[in-house]
């Protein structure tokens, strides 16, 4: 079927996308719109400032820090220091599911905390109100941890959230209080906030509890935020395989787990963009290697499990993982066999996130669908081209403002889990330790890669390619659907999911089948609007003459 489809020449599409822009804008955008070649991967301009006024998908640093990384941990009281809006908009909107073990266990996720900064706080400073808010939160809830998030005005007026946090931590005694300078203007997107969050979690949480963790195969799950229950499915699989999950960063997690995370023997990274810093820092300080995995897609999940088995090098684990895969796959296969005839040859576009636009291509491949264009909202060049480009990435003024922690091996706790020789041996077996090959290597030749897609470009791409499904977020959802193309939200999953692991893959196949084959898309035109319909043509004519 695919062979019948005529794809437009991507080089011409590229020209078309930038044609309407003012010269300077066109020049800038042209570097972010690239025709892919998986064999010689071209450079993509990424993680640079958005053109003002262009209508971007991007959000801010605060969204990346509080919304993405810190939000999903259920027992931290997250106080947003600033005017009310920032806390309000990040309140329960990311669908981070969590499952407290008992009805008494702390869970602050349904709550929204803010200092509701007023004009007088902007004029005279807001630290006093912030300290008051921390005290009130402590008196009401006695949480283990309170995290403070700075919004734009906070940095500008010079409130020192770190000093206020230190002071309150000392005063309260049994509550870990720490702050994040994640003002919305820092960096160029959410990405800056991820980095700031990683730094803070590493400095203030990881390593606070050295208690040994039971289990033979202990790992942390990095960059999995349990949207729609994704982490629950991965937890289910790990448990079945006999793998001990020490901490998740940060879906369905607790403060206690994160404080104990350095006792694991491996970090597996799902969302490379948002959490790779943590992997690197834990490697340097504690000697825990990290490995990129992907639990989006049934085949990818199986592959990721095998990688984990290979890392631990244990015959028992390898055998158990094969058993689990053998048990899970037939259910998945049965569904694919049923659905695939209806999805085969269809096309998808993915413009979302910093990893999702890559990971979800696996699921579409499993459905026999082709990704004709894809790009990230806030990723960096390494997420497109692979980590080998890291040394050649220029650090611009916007990135320079984000602190790089100086991490050194911990004098007591540094313990390389694998020797250099063992790591080399694993790499030789094809295991990518501390590596990520990026999105483009997997994408077809001549597919289009666009970073920080603008609204204008998205409409053009849809007009030109007429994809069967478009994947993005809530802001794009109804725009694209007005054009008669279904949009799958890959931030919130359209309130569905989970999409990870084996059960998640099945959920996704069913959702995509439902969306691309939904009869509603054929009902858009009224019968009297459809050309060639004899009776309607007559009707139309009579109306026209009126």
């Amino acid at each position, binding site marked *: 079927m695919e062979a019948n489809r005529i794809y437009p020449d991507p080089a011409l599409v590229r020209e078309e996308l930038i044609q*309407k*822009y*003012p010269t300077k804008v066109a020049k800038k955008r042209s570097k972010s719109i690239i025709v892919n070649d998986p064999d010689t991967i071209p450079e993509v301009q990424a993680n640079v400032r*958005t*053109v*003002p*006024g*262009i*209508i*971007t998908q*991007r*959000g*801010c640093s605060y*969204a990346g820090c509080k919304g993405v990384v810190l939000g999903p941990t259920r027992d931290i009281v997250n*106080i947003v220091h*600033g*005017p*009310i*809006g*920032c806390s*309000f908009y990040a*309140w*329960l909107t990311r669908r981070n599911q969590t499952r407290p073990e008992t009805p008494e266990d*702390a869970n602050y996720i349904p*709550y929204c*905390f803010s*200092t*509701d*900064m*007023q*004009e007088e706080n*902007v004029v005279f400073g807001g630290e006093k109100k*912030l300290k*008051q*808010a921390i005290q*009130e*939160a402590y008196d009401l*809830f006695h949480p283990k941890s309170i995290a403070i998030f700075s*919004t*734009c*005005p906070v940095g*500008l007026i010079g409130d020192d959230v770190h000093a206020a946090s230190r002071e309150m931590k000392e005063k309260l005694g049994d509550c870990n209080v720490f702050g994040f300078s994640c*003002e*919305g*203007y*820092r960096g160029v997107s959410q990405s800056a906030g991820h980095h700031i969050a990683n730094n803070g979690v590493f400095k203030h949480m990881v390593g606070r509890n050295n208690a040994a963790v039971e289990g033979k195969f202990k790992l942390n799950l990095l960059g999995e935020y349990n949207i729609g229950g994704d982490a629950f499915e991965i937890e289910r699989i790990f448990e079945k395989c006999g793998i001990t999950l020490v901490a998740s960063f940060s879906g369905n997690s607790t403060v206690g787990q994160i404080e104990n995370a350095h006792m694991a023997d491996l970090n597996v990274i799902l969302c490379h963009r948002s959490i790779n810093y943590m992997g690197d820092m834990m490697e340097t300080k504690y000697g825990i290697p990290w490995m990129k995995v992907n639990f989006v897609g049934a085949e990818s999940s199986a592959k990721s499990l095998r990688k984990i088995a290979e890392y631990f090098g244990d015959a028992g684990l390898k055998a158990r993982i094969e058993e689990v895969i053998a048990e899970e796959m037939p259910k998945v296969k049965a569904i694919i066999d049923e659905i695939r005839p209806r999805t085969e040859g269809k096309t998808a576009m993915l413009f979302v996130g910093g990893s999702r636009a890559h990971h979800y291509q696996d699921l579409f491949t499993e459905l026999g669908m082709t990704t004709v264009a894809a790009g990230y909202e806030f990723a960096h060049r390494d997420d497109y081209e692979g980590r080998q480009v890291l040394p050649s990435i220029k650090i611009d*003024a*916007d990135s320079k403002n984000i602190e790089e922690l100086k991490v050194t091996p911990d004098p007591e706790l540094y313990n390389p889990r694998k020797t250099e020789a063992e790591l080399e041996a694993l790499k030789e077996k094809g295991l990518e330790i501390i590596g990520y090959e990026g999105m483009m290597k997997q994408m077809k030749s001549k597919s289009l890669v666009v970073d920080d897609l*603008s609204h*204008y470009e998205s409409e053009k791409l849809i007009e030109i390619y007429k994809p069967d499904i478009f994947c993005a*977020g*809530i*802001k794009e*959802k109804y*725009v694209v659907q*007005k*054009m*008669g193309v279904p949009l799958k939200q890959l931030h919130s999953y359209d309130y569905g999911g989970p999409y990870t692991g084996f059960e998640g893959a099945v959920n996704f196949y069913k959702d995509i089948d439902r969306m691309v084959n939904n009869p509603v898309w054929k009902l*858009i*035109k009224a019968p009297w609007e459809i050309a060639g319909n004899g009776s309607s043509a007559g009707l139309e004519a009579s109306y026209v003459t009126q």
Partner: protein
Amino acid sequence: MLLRHTTTEVKEREGLTINPAKTCQPVGAMYAALGIHGCLPHSHGSQGCCSYHRSTLTRHYKEPVMAATSSFTEGASVFGGQANLLASIETIFSVYDPDIIAVHSTCLSETIGDDLQQITRKAKDDGKIPEGKYVIYASTPSFVGSHITGYANMVTGMAEQFAESTGEKKNQINIVAGWMEPSDMREIKRLSKEMGVKIVLFPDTSDVLDAPQTGKHEFYPKGGVTIEELKSTGDSKFSLALGCISAEPGAIALEKKCKVPFETLDMPIGLSATDRFIMSLSKAAGVPVPAEITSERGRLVDVMADMEQYFHGKKVALFGDPDQLIPLTEFLLDLNMKPVHIVSGTPGNRFEKRMQEVLERIPGANFKNGQCADMFLLHQWIKNEPVDLLIGNTYGKYIARDEDIPFVRFGFPILDRIGHSYFPSVGYSGGLRLAEKILSVLMDQQDRTALEEKFELVM
């Protein structure tokens, strides 16, 4: 329990707001600006603001919400955002070609002191605004007031920056819409037409945020008040402001600039407030009230009379925005219900005073607005004095589930249901819809929880 940490004991808070019953100014300005035809709202601040506001409005309407941002970075925050706004204006006019860009500020641009008037003037002087196109602005610092304030500020900006008086009065009435749904604006227009009154309604989000599926994305949908209409508001013979907080400032601006006299009314929610609206419109336009409107009213009163036993004495907790809470509370009183707990994060003495007037009939009712008047406090009040019904935006569902209270979604934002943008809450038909919704949730609760021997077929 979802809200397992909410304590029964109420302690005074001064620093910490928990579960707010408000959000910030810019989202209101963005919503208001969408009610101008051919307008692209523009957020002068960090990208996150625009992204959050678009997301919230999109989730509330399930519709495209187009808006642009100045995309501040650290540099702009230090050196000022003028360059970013000028660049935005140029990009927007060349790529998206709106008739108007409506710029609102944010806490960031306000804190650094960007002057929108000066920057838009510079854009004009530099030739960045094409002939026949406009850039209007409103100052909307997030650290003052609430989303309602931001809405009022943008509406005021429309009046101030567009209204012209030619010296020749037009036989038309301005209706300054308070923050209401597209369905409500459509209903106001229908009622006025029914009355035979020519009005200019602004802003007007009907046919913008309830656009039909046609297979084509209309970047500028057909709805919205036009520039010509906005200009003509200065020649109208009278203005009715629907809402003392969100609409009155717009009417005041018209009076100041073009000497258009005005009257401020409560938003026409429920029977009594709609009665006042109809009478004022009739008086201002000098037209009698047609029989059909009297019949519409009669149908609402009929339901109120026939169903009175189910409304009577039921205690209600509600939260939301001032111009909706005032007439809604009054309507509950007309239904013989007991609104006992009310919070709104929107500050203001005017609101407080008006609310106290309405609540005179319920001695001991709890009412708080402004800072720390949040849903945490409301929940605590409910724990101390339980209620039979909760009315508010979607966030209320957490309280409703934990406390097992029948819940009617009303206000902004409603993220988990549709209907608000299609079926009005204003006017007599809006009153019917509200009465039906309230009755349905009360009856559903009774049907779900009644003992088997007490389970009723007919009610």
